[in-house]
């Protein structure tokens, strides 16, 4: 009889899916919202239990779905890293729902609200599945599910603009998943397995014999480019600003904070558990990641600097932040990958914080989104103001906040790889300056009183004021102050993959 916490991954996934299915049966959106919040909170709780159980003993286990043992059956695998990620996904999903609930009911037609929460739950389910799965084909399936769910929560606020951007988003996502699928299929044809450990031994055998290096490179490339498209890495990121900028606040928060990261988590898991990092290094995929990452950092920052619509600006900045992640992955050093994961976690908190606060602030001038029109809004809603300021500071990289820790570890790991040190360093510096240039004027604008503007009284959103904003801000500070212990945890988790 295996201990209870072995079931937690499966339970949390199934919990979300079931919740998603029952949503349409619920009386109205308010109830559905509560259910969704409850589910995501539950997921966070379960993952916390899982963490408590496995992190101290540093355990990594696989969990068999159904009754077929490997190599036929379908497995989940979990370790400290997956547990942490799952916890963050659950928590942030919960907070986004809590903080964004107002705008959800403002933006979305009553008829569609229940569906919206269905999609949210499905999204969480697919994210968790992508994190936990031990079977690459299952991975593909959940990628597709997440695609549909993500597009759905974008289109939920159904205006022509969002529909249009959704179609663009959908098209590119489909291209991405197509590439991913063909990669999976090729891998299966080469190795004859779908479970990561079994594939791994085949791959290692092939590599040792030196056969099939070209097909392996092709496979790695296909998987990478599939994920790159879906997580809006530089050349493929065109769809992101429209989609994230147009969606309702909660959706943007979740999309920028979580969805983009889910794919990357899965990619890293594949690279570690299927190819092993050394093979990937030999296949030169990391160099491409590195280059694309740097390009993304610069491009995203510049675009964000030129953007005036505040939410699109945040979306552009997400592109830059994804660039940080891929740079970390591309550095060829374990600390770099760890730093990338830290960035994933920090950004998972900071970006929702920024989106939620921006949403609140724009409510002050009845949902006006252009930066210049937000002057003085922070005085009307000082919690959102402080939250936004904190997030912006973290993005700029002020010590004591998460952003600084990430930057520190990225540079430190870059110093271990002299070949990539200077490009990484210079790009980091440029993008840091750019960050300051578009975040700080924003902060100043929201804090300067303006006489001409006519703010309308905002009804207080208790969920946001008392739960979402404080917790997200606290998390930002937490990452700033405990970087060392976290990075060690992550490294231990990576070692187990």
């Amino acid at each position: 009889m295996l201990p209870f916490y072995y079931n937690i991954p499966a339970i949390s996934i199934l919990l979300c899916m079931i919740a998603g299915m029952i949503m349409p049966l619920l009386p109205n959106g308010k109830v559905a919202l509560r259910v969704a919040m409850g589910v995501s909170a539950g997921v966070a709780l379960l993952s916390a239990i899982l963490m408590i159980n496995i992190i101290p003993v540093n355990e990594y286990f696989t969990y068999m779905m159904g009754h077929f043992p490997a190599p036929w059956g379908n497995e989940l695998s979990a370790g400290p890293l997956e547990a942490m990620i799952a916890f963050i996904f659950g928590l942030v999903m919960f907070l986004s729902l809590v903080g964004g609930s107002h705008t959800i009911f403002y933006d979305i037609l009553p008829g569609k609200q229940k569906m919206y929460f269905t999609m949210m739950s499905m999204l969480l389910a697919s994210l968790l599945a992508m994190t936990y799965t031990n079977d690459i084909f299952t991975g593909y399936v959940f990628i597709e599910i997440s695609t549909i769910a993500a597009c759905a929560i974008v289109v939920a606020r159904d205006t022509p603009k969002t529909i249009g951007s959704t179609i663009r988003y959908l098209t590119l996502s489909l291209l991405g998943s197509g590439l991913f699928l063909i990669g999976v299929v090729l891998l299966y044809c080469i190795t004859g397995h779908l479970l990561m450990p079994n594939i791994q031994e085949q791959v290692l055998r092939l590599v040792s014999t030196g056969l099939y290096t070209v097909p392996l490179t092709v496979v790695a490339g296909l998987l990478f480019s599939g994920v790159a498209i879906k997580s809006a890495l530089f050349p493929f990121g065109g769809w992101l600003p429209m989609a994230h900028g147009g969606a309702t606040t909660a959706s943007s928060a979740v999309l920028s904070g979580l969805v983009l990261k889910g794919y990357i988590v899965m990619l890293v898991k594949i690279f570690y558990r299927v190819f092993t990092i050394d093979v990937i290094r030999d296949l030169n995929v990391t160099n491409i990641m590195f280059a694309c990452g740097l390009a993304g950092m610069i491009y995203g920052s510049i675009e964000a600097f030129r953007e005036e619509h505040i939410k699109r600006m945040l979306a552009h900045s997400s592109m830059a932040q994804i660039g940080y992640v891929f740079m970390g992955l591309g550095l060829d050093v374990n600390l770099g990958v760890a730093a990338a994961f830290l960035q994933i976690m920090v950004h998972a908190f900071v970006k929702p914080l920024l989106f939620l606060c921006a949403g609140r602030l724009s409510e002050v001038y009845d949902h006006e989104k252009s930066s210049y029109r937000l002057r003085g809004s922070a005085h009307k809603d000082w919690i959102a103001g402080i939250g936004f300021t904190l997030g912006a500071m973290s993005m700029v990289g002020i010590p004591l906040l998460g952003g600084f820790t990430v930057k520190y570890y990225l540079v430190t790991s870059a110093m271990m790889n002299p070949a990539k040190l200077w490009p990484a360093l210079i790009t980091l510096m440029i993008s840091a300056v750019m960050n300051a240039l578009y975040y700080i004027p924003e902060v100043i604008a929201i804090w300067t009183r303006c006489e001409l503007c006519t703010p309308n009284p905002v009804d207080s959103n208790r969920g946001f004021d008392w739960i979402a904003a404080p917790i997200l801000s606290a998390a930002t500070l937490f990452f700033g102050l405990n970087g060392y212990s976290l990075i060690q945890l992550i490294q231990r988790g990576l070692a187990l993959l």
Partner: protein
Amino acid sequence: MPNFMILLAILTPLIGASAMTQPFMQDRDRRERFIMGIVVLTSLFTFALIIKPPTEMLKLFRLTEHLTIAFHVDGLSRLFAAIVASLWPLTTLYAFDYMHHEGGEQRFFGFFLVAYGIVLGVAFAGSMVTMYLFFELLTLSTLPLVMHHMDAKARYAGLRYLIYSMTGASLGFVSVIFLSVYGSADFFVLGGMLDAKHIIGNEALLQGVFTLSFFGFGVKAALFPGHGWLPLASVAPTPVTALLHAVAVVKAGIFACIRLVYYGYGTDLLQGSFAQTLTMMAAVFTIAFGSIMALRTDHFKRRLAYSTISNLSYILFSVTLMTDRGLQAAGLHMIYHAIIKITLFFGAGAVLAKTGKEYVSQLSGMASKMPITFASFTLASLALMGIPPLPGFWSKWSIGSAAASLGTPIAYMGIAALMLSALLTALYQMGVVIQGYFPTDEQEAGPLTPRMSRKQRRSPRYVLRAARAAYSGQFESRNMNLTLLILSATILIMGFADGYVEQIVRQFLF
């Protein structure tokens, strides 16, 4: 002195600032009493720390294995903190009158107090990352002050200020990491925090990184490539230009550079390296460049800003000598230039505030209308020119002799630059004084003070009355004159007591 006093000194003004947002601060008298109270209290704490520095370091958070947020009070901190803590109350006093006609006082004084706390934070920072933290915060807290007017000009100046500072900060950030990785711990130690066994083989790399971050922190000190923001920033209200852009912020930049050279990388690593050559050349160039630009500028405050640029590079030049004498000379000029330049700016501000004259060429004959202002301005100008025994001479003296004792070609170039800039200083300062005191016939000044009969004029009562008239004249206001008089007195006293000042500086630093 327990070491949590440091936090007390840093936090007091911040708390005070948070009170500024409250509506009950609308009332002017109450607000001014409150602000003055906070500022004086903070200065008292600071002086307590300077006089009886706490022995052990105050470690707050451990960010990573190498980075710690820590505070301590060492010689350099005491020096810098003393300057700041003694000038801040004066500026506050001055600002009360000045800001009265600028408006937006609540916001202004709020950030003014915040800046005080943060500058103290820079002064008492015990580790590289702490200093970096407060450095960034300093930029953010002074930005609203630069953009105070919120018109296009101010916003443009603010943006430039932001770009320059952030670029500088990100260059400095590199050093934060390299020092922490190549060093044993990132706490400041006189002589360098680097770990000897890590240095071997990486000298060139470290020197290169040092050069980068020296220019990075030099941005705040208006070192040549990064000087562009300072003249623009003179759109800010005068108390800001005077205190922040002549003393607090820019001296913080220099403070950081000193930390970098003497407490971070250590002079042993840098002495005689290409890093020293590069930085020193930049400083030398800036000295000449600043003076020339100052001479060519007609806008009063901008002229002073350029003069600040050149004078700051005196200090940086002396810092890059990388000898103990150089460090001491730098400290000396830090003190003296602070007092002199703040006096000059107050003079300029008084003219600007009371007559709205912005350009030197408009000032002809103003001296007869604002006697005290122009008297103190002249005194400060002489001090800046380096007329013995005024303070400017002594600091220039120690810089020059320190450079001569180093004796490298660039050091001699530096002396030449000092001399050139002495000449130019005389020209651009005396230009103002001449305008003030000797209006040409073409541009005769307005009505002078009322003439009296000889008997009246001989009588001592007249002298008193004249003095009183000057003290609270129609053009000059009480607080401004008070500050100006205090500062002039300080300049004179310091000039004659130079021996003691140098002794104190030496005692602080070594």
